[in-house]
């Protein structure tokens, strides 16, 4: 395995882990992105990097293995999509609470004391009132 690539992957994993441990979702998103890059660089190192995958003709040793590259591409697309979802979640959190900090488990604290309103029933109530409005139309 190429030492430079391995060291790069290790650094990326280190940075990513630090950022994932923060409270703000925006930092966590960046951390997860860096972590995913670390995984991808590590993957790249498995396929004789630096050589062309499919160019011209020649012996097997002159080509790099194209499979890891294809797989990395898939992994990148997936982490891209999920990152966008997370960013939307962070925005929604900012709209609702004015912050994108990941809150504590409120329920856990409530077990000791306090109560809450039940929100799913609220959702049902909205549905019913909406259907009534539709019926009236």
């Amino acid at each position: 395995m190429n030492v430079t690539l391995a060291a790069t992957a290790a650094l990326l994993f280190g940075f990513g882990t630090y950022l994932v441990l923060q409270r703000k979702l925006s930092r966590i998103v960046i951390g997860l992105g860096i972590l995913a890059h670390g995984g991808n660089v590590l993957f790249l190192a498995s396929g004789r990097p630096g050589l062309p995958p499919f160019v011209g003709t020649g012996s097997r040793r002159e080509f790099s293995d194209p499979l890891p590259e294809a797989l990395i591409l898939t992994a990148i697309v997936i982490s891209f999509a999920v990152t966008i979802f997370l960013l939307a979640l962070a925005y929604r959190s900012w709209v609702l609470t004015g912050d994108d900090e990941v809150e504590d488990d409120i329920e856990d604290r409530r077990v000791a004391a306090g109560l809450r309103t039940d929100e799913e029933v609220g959702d049902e109530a909205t549905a019913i009132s909406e259907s009534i409005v539709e019926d009236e139309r």
Partner: protein
Amino acid sequence: MSDWLVLPILLPIIGAGLSIITGRVRWLQRLIGLSVLTVMMVFSVLLLVEVDRDGTIATQVGAWPAPIGITLIADRFAAIMLVLACLMLLTVLVYAIGQPGAERNHVGFQSVYLILAGGLCATFLTGDLFTLFVSFEVMLTASYVLLTLGARRAQVRAGMTYVVISLLSSTLFVTAIALVYTATGTLNLADLSGKVGDLPGGVRMAFSVLFLIVFGIKAGLFPLFFWLPDSYPTAPSPVTAVFAGLLTKVGVYAIIRVETLLFPTSRPTTLLLVLAGLTMLVGVLGSIAQDDFKRILSFLIVSSIGFVVMGLGFFTVAGIAAAIFYVVNHIVVKTALFLTGGLVEHVGGSSLLLGVGNMVRTAPVLAVLFAIPALSLTGVPPFAGFVAKFALVDSGFGTGEYIVVGVSLLVSLLTVFSMTKIWSGVFWSPAERVDDMPPAAGHHAGRIGGPVLMVVPTAALVAVSVAIMVLAGPLFALSERAARDLLDPSNYVQAVLG
């Protein structure tokens, strides 16, 4: 039949596309969802019958030969899981249509739900590690959307934890795949099954632990379970029911598949047994501390994962057969309990034990629908849960692992306690009103305990759980055949590599 293996993956994805196009015509959208899942259900039953008769079947997608192409494979275990998944998905979809809430409020619900179905089926049928990763992602991405449908504050908070944890485990999964590919040069499970054995002991150990962490996060194994009881209860109740019944079981499925195929041993695995014992214990203790029945049930999911992993940890035919039978029963029972929970919430207006009460009089049907799966989950004879737990304990005595068996018996006792807590809180005690709580926005229970389309699927699942009890003999024999397949991977390897 082998050419049709792609059907349970392709059909729901196509259905999801059609579902988006027909979003404005709700009856057509529902028709598409229901018919897709019905076809999948019929197909999976036919598949199970054929696989059980003729043995493992496999196909190469795109006709690329085995170690290179994408392999789809169905052995008995995969076929059993497929049947259960389709059954749960179908009944819960009917329930979701009947419930005023998620499905009615969101046009996209049906298509996301179908994508979840496709991802789930792909996870069970795939024959190589990378496709397993992709199927996991398809399923999880759909689950992120379903979990945060409505985007209320509690959901956004729980969704953050859930998505971040899942994404972290996916990153670890990619890393593990990269390392495995570097070490062996293949990702096909059947091919790996031969090649991992040749690696040095330390490397194998590292891979084994890495996969255990990756799938342990998804399954909710101790100490990686903390996100589960935090996030599941905030979703709409049909969504929670599907998650509770199927999503954690996918993690367990992957653990069983990888451990038996890549890291087979002939002796009980101490690591798995210790994790299993702690998972059971922590799950049930957590459930006792809660005062909200959805959260009690969510902690019990964690606890039951421990039982399954314990069966796997024994590494005997009896142990794994018991684990499979336990999974079969547990998926049905847990989904039924969450559906009943949704009904209780619909009628009572709250999921807090304090907020509802006296339901044995106001909604006696719900009491029955709760009591039967609850008794089965705790393992009271003659219900199927008893058969599963008896088989687990028996196989544990067979291998001489008395400590973990003792823990499992203690946990069963504590499970009875937490179920009693729900029973007395929801069904027997009078509803207590606390001053600062707004009046519950409940509905009249009516004669059958709720809307017909919610009660009928719940009752159907309870009936299935009773059927599992009646057919315990043949089903356990099937589980034993599946366990034998798992412990002797030669059939699996031969079906893929020829």
